[in-house]
């Protein structure tokens, strides 16, 4: 096998972007979608090929193309690296990406700018694949920034909508703050390690068992800043709820399955650094747990279906961060995998729901839809069960593994575990709330949305309004609601299947499985040459002993404890379901009464704890003031503009003075000639320019 040609994997979507971007507006829609699908399916097939030839490779497999920066002190290449972690990410990105492309063909069929959408999606795929395949921090940063750009372009896709444009800008700017941390981390890495290559950094850390804390903590914390920006954790999560302004496939692909997981991927990729910086790991764990809990609480009162899913994403990402913070890296990636399946499914199904009810996103105006859109209903049900963590669905195994690892880890312990379990209960609650509000009960749509497409029934208005709120899903009035086309349903079904079976590759020992997924990732998380694990480091640091350079023997597992913990998490999920069932199916008037009785608390949570407003006041407003009055008014207009005016005035003045030489008067020209000649002669007499020998040769 002569080369895997890894470079093709990112380049093909780039080609699709160029094709659709440059020529798309002139091509028919069928051709545009064929292009996009082709250039997304091809990388997926390539990744499958890589997967099949995986065992024959020597890992890590590095494909160097050319030098990018080549100085004597430091060099960085255009190089792609492949190992188990990369393979998992590649499968997720290309696989789920392809399914979402298929879905978008149906979903975006009536949108203007169809070609633009697919061009941007392909561009996103290119950058994301670059990020995942990168062999060094610098190339990863290219992908990192690029996905931020693609996210901005896609969030602001409906650029005529003011709120969408502002959401796009908000996403980009907040991401930028995180990227600043990433950049600083890269600079520190260059200074202290002299290299930005992942493998070289890891091997250098492995060779120096005495390195811990200090600079490594600084680098790790800066990387965490970058990760919180990209993966929407506290304090930089604020862009993700607003990013729902983008089309639903965008929310599914970028803000659920792939881009937001880049932060988690980055932490796992550089886990060698984090293992030596216990403080940073603690910070990660705390941020993860806090974000998970906090976002879940906000999610329970949101009324927009996509907002609920957005906060759910933030919460689940918090779980992944929590897992990283507990040094359970393979658990984090496992959850990333299952989350990609069920979260993408949730978003796509939500898109199907929205499509069915003609654009309405408020859950209070839905209800009883399970009779009209059965396929959507069943697939979404699978996703809801998966995210709530019911066995044997995918989310159960990954979430359970995270909680078990957190309980065991020296960085986690019972406290964080409790937070995780409570959050799991809340997650289950709000997901089932969404389920009940959307699919059960009576249809609460106003008349226009219930009417058939494109035919406003003016005469039927009053009749429909009268009957809209009374009867449970009367067929006669709701014939506008229809199931989505097969191009949208097929990905839903596939993702539902994956949400059901996806967790089975990671069944832990305690429950009779072989934990295949964690073992698959072992070479990355605990391989030879990979330095001592986090547990060893923290133990060594605490006891003052030298940090060992070898791996410990396999940790003795305690299957009994693990089964108890598993039972607790399933119990929490059931509790959430029960609560949702009570409040939203059996006693639907209860939530309103509860909200009314605790008005302040309800208002606080409904308005996302006013965080956006606090940020606006503390950060945005001062920056705007400084920019407008100091930087623009003072510096730009005063110094630069003033300097301009001075220079221009000087030039003008000099010009108007010198203009008088050109008088048109021949005699004055003659005068200037004469004095010029005299001056030259004088200068050469004093030796400038020529040498006059006063003697005879």
């Amino acid at each position: 096998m002569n080369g895997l040609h890894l470079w093709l994997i990112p380049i093909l979507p780039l080609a699709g972007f160029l094709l659709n971007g440059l020529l798309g507006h002139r091509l028919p829609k069928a051709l545009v979608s064929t292009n996009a699908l082709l250039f997304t399916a091809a990388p997926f097939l390539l990744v499958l090929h890589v997967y099949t030839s995986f065992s024959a490779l020597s890992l890590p497999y590095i494909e160097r193309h050319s030098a990018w920066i080549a100085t004597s002190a430091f060099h960085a290449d255009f190089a792609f690296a492949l190992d188990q972690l990369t393979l998992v990410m590649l499968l997720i990105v290309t696989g789920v990406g392809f399914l979402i492309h298929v879905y978008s063909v149906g979903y975006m069929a009536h949108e203007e700018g169809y070609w633009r959408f697919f061009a941007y999606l392909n561009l996103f795929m290119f950058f994301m694949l670059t990020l995942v395949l990168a062999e060094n921090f610098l190339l990863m940063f290219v992908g990192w920034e690029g996905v931020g750009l693609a996210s901005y372009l896609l969030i602001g896709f409906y650029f005529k909508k003011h709120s969408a444009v502002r959401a796009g800008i908000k996403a980009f700017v907040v991401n930028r703050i995180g990227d600043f941390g990433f950049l600083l981390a890269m600079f520190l890495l260059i200074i202290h390690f002299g290299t930005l290559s992942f493998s070289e950094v890891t091997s250098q850390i492995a060779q120096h068992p005495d390195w811990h804390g200090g600079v490594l903590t600084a680098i790790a914390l800066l990387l965490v800043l970058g990760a919180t920006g990209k993966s929407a954790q506290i304090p930089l999560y604020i862009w993700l709820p607003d990013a729902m302004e983008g089309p639903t496939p965008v929310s599914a692909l970028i803000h659920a399955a792939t881009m937001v997981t880049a932060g988690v991927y980055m932490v796992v990729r550089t886990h060698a650094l984090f293992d030596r910086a216990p403080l940073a790991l603690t910070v990660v764990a705390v941020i993860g747990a806090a974000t998970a809990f906090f976002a879940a609480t906000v999610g329970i009162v949101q009324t927009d279906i996509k907002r609920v899913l957005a906060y759910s994403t933030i919460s689940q990402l918090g779980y992944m961060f929590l897992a990283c913070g507990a040094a359970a890296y393979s658990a984090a990636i496992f959850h990333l995998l299952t989350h990609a399946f069920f979260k993408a499914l949730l978003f796509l199904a939500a898109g199907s729901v929205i499509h069915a009810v003609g654009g309405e996103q408020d859950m209070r105006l839905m209800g009883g839809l399970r009779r009209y859109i059965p396929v959507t209903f069943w697939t979404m049900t699978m996703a809801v069960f998966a995210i709530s963590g019911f066995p044997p669905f995918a989310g159960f195994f990954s979430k359970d593994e995270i909680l078990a690892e957190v309980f065991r880890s020296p960085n986690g312990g019972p406290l964080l575990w409790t937070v995780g379990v409570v959050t799991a209960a809340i997650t289950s609650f709000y997901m089932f709330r969404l389920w009940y509000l959307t699919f059960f009960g009576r249809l609460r749509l106003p008349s226009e949305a219930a009417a058939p497409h494109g035919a406003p029934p003016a005469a039927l208005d009053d009749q429909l309004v009268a009957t809209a709120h009374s009867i449970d899903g009367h067929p006669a009035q709701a014939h506008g609601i229809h199931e989505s086309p097969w191009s949208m349903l097929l990905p839903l079904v596939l993702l539902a299947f994956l949400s059901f079976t996806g967790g089975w590759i990671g069944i832990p020992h305690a429950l009779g499985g072989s934990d295949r997924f964690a073992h698959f990732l072992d070479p990355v998380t605990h391989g030879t040459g990979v330095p001592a694990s986090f547990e060893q480091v923290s133990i060594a640091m605490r006891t003052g002993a030298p940090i060992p350079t070898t791996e410990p023997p396999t940790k003795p597992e305690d299957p009994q404890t693990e089964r108890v913990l598993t039972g607790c998490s399933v119990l929490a999920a059931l509790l959430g379901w029960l609560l949702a069932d009570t409040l939203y199916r059996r006693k639907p008037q209860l939530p309103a009464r509860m909200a009314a009785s605790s008005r302040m608390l309800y208002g606080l949570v409904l308005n996302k704890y006013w965080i956006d407003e606090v940020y606006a006041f503390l950060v945005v407003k001062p920056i705007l003031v400084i920019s407008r009055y100091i930087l623009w008014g003072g510096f730009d207009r005063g110094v630069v503009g003033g300097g301009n005016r001075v220079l221009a005035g000087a030039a003008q003045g000099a010009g108007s003075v010198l203009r008088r030489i050109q008088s048109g008067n021949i005699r004055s020209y003659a005068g200037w000639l004469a004095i010029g000649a005299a001056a030259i002669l004088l200068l050469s007499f004093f030796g400038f320019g020529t040498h006059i020998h006063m003697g005879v040769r």
Partner: protein
Amino acid sequence: MAFGMYLVIFFIFGALCIAGALNLLLQRHPINSALSLIVVMTSLAVLYLLLGAEFLAAAQIIVYSGAVMVLFTFVIMLLNAGEEERTRGSRAAYLVGFPGVAALLGILTYIFLSVRAPLGNAQLGGGTLVTTSDLSRVLFRDLLLPFEVTSVLILVAILGAVALARKDS
């Protein structure tokens, strides 16, 4: 003495040159200036002879006084140039030009007189006379190309003069 004669001739004809030049400056009617210039040219021809350039002396009289100045005279008569009016002169010329000119003269004179001894004397006799054959030997052998180019130049000048001075009919 024969040698002293050279000095006398030099001073006479040098004075004639300067007188003619000053006359050119001071006369108001251009035809007077033209005639003064002819005097200057002719005196210069004598000075060339004193310096041993016999061909150049002849050429000076034939070409300069005999052709160029005649051309000037023709044009003056053609255009019926009258006496100069006393229009307002250019201030720049007076303010800037005269000091410049005076400075120029001062510097040059100073330089030349300060190297009077190293420069030596103009001695006629011996091999110092440059005959026409010497001149033509250099001109037609080493400098043949510039010579031919000059003839092209003259051709161009003829064409230009004819084209410029033609009446647009």
